[in-house]
């Protein structure tokens, strides 16, 4: 389960509700129209639980956590 994780958003499914930014503010901010701007780069291990919460809470299931496995 090792490897870099990053959040990705399905822009078509996303409705800009903003629950993700509520629970993971260090990872997700909202643009001027309420849509998520994701922090670039790997998620620090300390913030992974927040990332998982955000994925779980998205009402449209638009957020996903993508892990690059080191073993390819």
């Amino acid at each position, binding site marked *: 389960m090792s490897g870099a994780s990053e959040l990705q958003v*399905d*822009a*078509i499914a*996303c409705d800009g509700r903003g629950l993700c930014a509520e629970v993971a503010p260090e990872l997700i901010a909202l*643009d*001027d*129209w309420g849509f998520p*701007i994701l922090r670039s780069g790997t998620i620090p291990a300390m913030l992974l639980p927040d990332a998982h919460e955000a994925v779980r809470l998205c009402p449209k299931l638009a957020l996903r956590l993508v892990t690059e496995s080191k073993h390819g």
Partner: protein
Amino acid sequence: MSSDPLSEARQPASAPIGDLSLLDLEPRTQLPRLLPDSFGAGPLSLREHLAKYGPLPAIGGRARPAQEVLAEVELAGLTGRGGAAFPTARKLAAVATAGPHPVVVVNGTEGEPASAKDKVLLATAPHLVLDGAEIGARIVGAAEVVFVAHGAVVGAVQEALSERVAAGLNQLHVTVVPAADGFVAGEARAVVNWAGMGRPVPTPSPPRLAKRGLAGRPTLVQNAETLAHLALIVRRGADWFRAVGTADEPGSTLVTIIGAVASPGVREVALGTPVAEVLALAGGLSQPLQALLLGGYFGTWVRWSEVGDLPFSAAGLAEVKAAPGAGLVAALPADCCGVTETARLARYLADESAGQCGPCVFGLDAIAAELAAIASGRDCRLTRLRRWLGQVAGRGACAHPDGAVRMIRSAIDVFGAELELHSSGWCSGSRSHVLPLPLRRQP
């Protein structure tokens, strides 16, 4: 050639790839390759097509193996002519190895309103494109082709297909579908979505089209012009294809030249031709120029003073952060207001959003409104505009917002002086717009 080209075409061709005699010609005289020598005659009939280009070599079975043809395409260095310039051989290989029941989708939509090259190609040489589609199908192992063609030329394509069927030359299941209207309708995923589900809007990626596209099958989406080049590479060989163009960007490409030129229209040029020479093909400048818009309405503005000598190629135009794109070369005369033109384009692009992604729908709309305010001199601080341009790029499901942002950013750079003027309440433009936009969508 005294024999009937049609009956020749029915026999499996044993001629080797590459008509070397064509290489003896001066590269310049090899042009045009795709376009007819003169317009106005209508599309080439099947007979005329075969007489001009020769029969389509067979691929697979007892004839040349598909792998070998693919290698030839790779050697030729053909890249996509739809705007993204993706290496064609790589795309073909990806679909060929992606799984069972691949399908070929020909993208003849040409959603870019100012571009006419695909329409002209399909109206004059539809058989070349159909040949290319067949080759693409043979290489990836597809038995089915869906040909999505712009409404203006769908009849010509249908006609050409009927000719092939009547002559017994058509061995694949080919369906011709009229393209949907609209700018994003020409985007590869939107074309597939239109062909499959009747919705001409982009779909999320992943999954890649090469793996799962039309009806969940591996899908090869190729621009019509790319397929036309493919049809000639298979007949004449990689060396012939590379005889014009540059080493890194070989071959010829179709361009649509509009604006302040004497005879605007579609021309065929070798990649790497100096931009000034490209404009000369359209009769040269009809007025002094201030700038060019290159690639498409999603492309890049460049100052005329900086671009005239540059080669028309990705490498050559990279210097001014531009690219050949979909082949649009729009010449903006000096007495036109670049800011107003940009504002018009921005509003068009915002209205043409597929409407699926928040940043594109709201962001482009806000940006267009801001540009309209700037163009009319109401408000000229660029802070909000720059902020929104930064927020919108890269955050949609397709490249539509990215293209709009790129075009607008380049405008801010190129028309800096005009922007200054607008902020003090003046506009230097003395003529109304030059870039064509549809008044409304077709119902």
